[in-house]
């Protein structure tokens, strides 16, 4: 183990801002990406409904024609 205390760990030998700025941005971006997909999923129910589209319906047509 390289660290004797939490403070030392956070300090990263004087490079704390750079190291945690990198790891922090990664965590932020990846979390935001997951959140964005969840929001987009929620918005699906609000999509305007048109006529039923059964052109590619696997229950309507044999699969080899689908």
């Amino acid at each position: 183990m390289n660290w004797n205390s939490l403070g030392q760990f956070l300090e990263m030998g004087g490079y704390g801002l750079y190291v945690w700025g990198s790891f922090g941005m990664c965590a932020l971006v990846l979390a935001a990406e997951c959140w964005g997909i969840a929001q987009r999923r929620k918005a699906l129910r609000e999509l305007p409904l048109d006529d039923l589209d059964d052109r590619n319906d696997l229950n309507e047509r044999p699969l080899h024609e689908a």
Partner: protein
Amino acid sequence: MSWTRYAAPQLFYPLAGKMIPWFAALALLLTAVGLYLGLLVAPTDHQQGESYRIIFVHVPAAWMSMIIYLAMAFWAAVGLMFNTRLASMLAVALAPSGAWMTFLALWTGALWGKPTWGTWWVWDARLTSELILLFLYIGFMSLHAAIDDERRADRAAAVLALVGVVNVPIIYFSVKWWNTLHQGASVSLSKAPSMATIMLVGMLVMALAFWMYSIAVALARTRVIILEREHNTRWARQLLGTT
């Protein structure tokens, strides 16, 4: 019935739903191990001090930015050649993930460059070609968004993705072809890695973690895109409860 039946969005949707938890679990597990190795076990670098630890996220993000582009171009090409809707949706789903990975590679690179080189940015071949990669992703997404007809948008964006593929080997070999400030590859298939084993293992575990995360997220986004495009079909209406 063969595996190709999963090219039907209606059948791929539940299959992807079953795969996502596995990739997500692998991503979490590998991230935990990778962070433990990278932040707690790996020793201080005798030249760079602790700032080198940025490579545990920088290298995985940079690798994924290129791998995702290749995957995106591959599925775009399949969609273009075989006119398969799902392949085009996969390409469209991969683009935002690739763009974010490219951004992270540039961001973490800048934060590594400042203490190590004394500058956030330099217009050398490696950094410039990686920035072009970001513009290619943004161009792909913008072009796709600008065309109303989804299938036409798929085809136009696919052509752009395929033209842009030429940039990936340029990024990869830039440190060999030109005299760049960016260092050469520390890990390659042709020679022994020029770093301590524990650092290398930590970096590879983090790269695998990013890879598993990217697959899980791309699949989740593909599922949303399938429903967005198919929301007027019988099966999607039943699933969404909008019948």
